[in-house]
C-alpha cells in the first residue's frame, strides 16, 4: 500500500477519533469540573480546587437542598407513572385505529414536543389563574404541566414497541381461548414492557431536569430542585451548588442504571436485537 493510500485511508478515522474525543471533552468536562469544584476548601469556586474538604457537601445535605430534591423525585415519579398510564391506551388508539380526529389527537399529544416548554409554562400559569385554580399552583399545577410535556416521550416509546409486536400474536392468543384482557395481560403487555419502562424513564428524566416550565408553576415550599438551583445562581456560583449539581446529576443516572439492569433498557434504545 502506498503512503498516499495509507494516509487517505487513515485520515477519516483520525478525524472520527478527534470528533469523539471532542464530544467527551465537552459533555463530560463540565461535569468533572463541577464535581472537582465541590471539594474546594475555601469559599470560592476554584478550579483546580484549592485544598480538599467535604464542607460544601455537608451544606448540600441540608433540608434547604434535600427538600426540593425530594420534591423533584416525587414529582418526576408521579409524572412518569401518569404519563405512561395515559400513553398506553393513547398509543394503542393512535397506532391501531384510524378514526375521525386522529390527526388532531396526534398533534395534541405530540405537540408539546415541538412547542417551547417556556410557552407551555406561561400558558398553564395563565390558565390556572384565569379559571380560578390559583390555589393549585405548586405541586398540582406542576404535575399537570409535567405530564403534558413528558407524555409525548412515553407515547413515542410505547408506539415503537407496539410496532415491533409480531403481527398475528394477538389473533393466535384469541384462537387459543384468551379473552381480550388475557391477551393484553399475557401477550401484549410482556412484549411492550420495555417500551413502557423506557417511556417512564424518559418521562422521569424530562420531568426531573425541566426548568422552563417549572419556573412558572412553582411556589415557595413546592419548588423542584432545578428551579431552586436557578434561584440560588442569582447570588453567584458557590461550591455548595457544585455539590448539589452533582447529586442532581447522579440521581437520574443511578435510576437509569438500575432500570437498565432490571429490564434491558439499552436494548430498547439501541434496537431489538435481544427481544423475545
Amino acid at each position, binding site marked *: 500500500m502506498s503512503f498516499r493510500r495509507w494516509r487517505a485511508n487513515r485520515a477519516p478515522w483520525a478525524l472520527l477519533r478527534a470528533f469523539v474525543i471532542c464530544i467527551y471533552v465537552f459533555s463530560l468536562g463540565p461535569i468533572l469540573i463541577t464535581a472537582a469544584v465541590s471539594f474546594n476548601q475555601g469559599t470560592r469556586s476554584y478550579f483546580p480546587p484549592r485544598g480538599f474538604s467535604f464542607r460544601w457537601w455537608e451544606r448540600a445535605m441540608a433540608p434547604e437542598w434535600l427538600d426540593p430534591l425530594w420534591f423533584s423525585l416525587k414529582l418526576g415519579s408521579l409524572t412518569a407513572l401518569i404519563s405512561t398510564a395515559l400513553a398506553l391506551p393513547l398509543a394503542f388508539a393512535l397506532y391501531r385505529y384510524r378514526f375521525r380526529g386522529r390527526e388532531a389527537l396526534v398533534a395534541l399529544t405530540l405537540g408539546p414536543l415541538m412547542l417551547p416548554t417556556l410557552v407551555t409554562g406561561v400558558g398553564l400559569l395563565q390558565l390556572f389563574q384565569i379559571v380560578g385554580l390559583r390555589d393549585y399552583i405548586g405541586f398540582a399545577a406542576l404535575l399537570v404541566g409535567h405530564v403534558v410535556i413528558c407524555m409525548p416521550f412515553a407515547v413515542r416509546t410505547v408506539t415503537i414497541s407496539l410496532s415491533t409486536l*409480531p*403481527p*398475528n*400474536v394477538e*389473533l*393466535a*392468543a*384469541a*384462537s*387459543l*381461548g*384468551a*379473552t381480550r384482557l*388475557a391477551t393484553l395481560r*399475557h*401477550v401484549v403487555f*410482556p*412484549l411492550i414492557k420495555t417500551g413502557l419502562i423506557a417511556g417512564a424513564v424518559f418521562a422521569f428524566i424530562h420531568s426531573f431536569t425541566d426548568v422552563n416550565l417549572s419556573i412558572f408553576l412553582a411556589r415557595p415550599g413546592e419548588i423542584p430542585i432545578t428551579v431552586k438551583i436557578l434561584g440560588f445562581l442569582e447570588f453567584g456560583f458557590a461550591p455548595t451548588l457544585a455539590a448539589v449539581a452533582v447529586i442532581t446529576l447522579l440521581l437520574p443516572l443511578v435510576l437509569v442504571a438500575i432500570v437498565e439492569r432490571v429490564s434491558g433498557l439499552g436494548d430498547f434504545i439501541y434496537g431489538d436485537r435481544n*427481544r*423475545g
Partner: protein
Amino acid sequence: MAEPALRLAGIEKHYGATVAVAGIDLEVQDGEFVTLLGPSGCGKTTTLGLIAGFFPPTAGEIYLRGKPVADLPSFKRDIGVVFQDYALFPHMTAAENVAFGLRMRRVAPGETAQRVKDALDLVKLGGLGDRRPLQMSGGQRQRVALARALVINPAVLLLDEPLSNLDLKLREEMRVEIVSIQRRLGITTIFVTHDQGEALVMSDRIAVMNAGRIEQVGDPAAIYETPATRFVAEFIGRMNLFNGAVTPARGVRLASGVEVALPVPDDVATGTAVHVAIRPERARLTPGTPGDGLALMGKVRRILYLGAAREIHLELADGERGVVEVRNDGSGLGFAEGSEVWLSAPLANCRVLPVR
C-alpha cells in the same frame, strides 16, 4: 346423518365495496382434511379468518359441530390455528407457548405438563421445550405452532399456508408429517394454500377458490381429472385448451374445422363456444395420422428438456398452441424442432369445458 364438523352457509365478507368472500357453502365432515386452494386474493385466507372468528362475516352462518358460531368471538370458538408466520409468543419458551391454550382453559398444572409433553413429542420436539422461538429454526417453530394448536384438542384445526416459509426439502417433509399427524388424531382440518402440489398430496378434498367463490369441490383426483371450469383446469396442473363450438350432432367442431365426437353436457346449447381440454401428459405425438380420437396436425416449435420428461411445444395448423409432455424413457423423440407431427389423444382423455 351426523352433523358435519364444520358447515359454511352462504358466508360473505365485504370490505366497503370490495368483496373478499362472495358467498361460500361448504361442508366438512368429521376428521376430514379439506384444502382451500386458490391464487392470492381469492379469499381463502379471509375464509379461514371467518372460521377462526378473527372478524365477523358480512352475511351467512358458520356451524361448528352443528352450533352456529358466527356471532361468537374467536376465544369462545373451539379452534386451533397455525399461522403462516407461526405467530409464536416470543417471550415464552416452546413449552410455555404450547401450554398457553391450556392455561387459558384453566387446566390443572399437572395435566397441562403432561399434555404439553405429549404434544411436543407428537411433533418430535421432545426435549426442546425450554427453547425460545428465536433460538429455533423455521421448521422447529412450525412444529411448536402445530403443537400449540393441537394440544387444546380443537373441533377444527385451521392451517394458513403453514409451509410457505420453509425451504423446499423441509416443505415436502412437513407435508407428509402434517398429514400423518392429522390422520392419527383424526382431527378435522382446513388447510389454506396456493400450492397445488401441497393440495393434491395432502387433501381428502380440495375446494378450488377464485374471486371469493368456490369453483369446484372434490377429491384430488376428481379435481385434476375432471375439472369443472377452465379456471380449475388451468390452476391445477397444466391444460391444453382448444377453441371450438358445439355442433348440432352434439359434438364439438374445433376452430381448425376438425370435428371431435366428444359428449357435450345437455345443458350446453348447440353453437355455444367451448374448449376441448387435454392434459399435456395425456396427449401423444405421432409422425402420421393416428386412427381415431382427437388428432391435430402441427409443427414442433420448441423442445424443453426437463430431465424426467420433455415438453414439446407445438404450433397447430390453425395457429393455436399446444403442449405435449413426453416421458424421457430413453427411446428418443424421433423428431426435432420444425418437424411436422400429429398431436393425438383418445377421446377418453379429452374433456369439454365451458368458455369463461
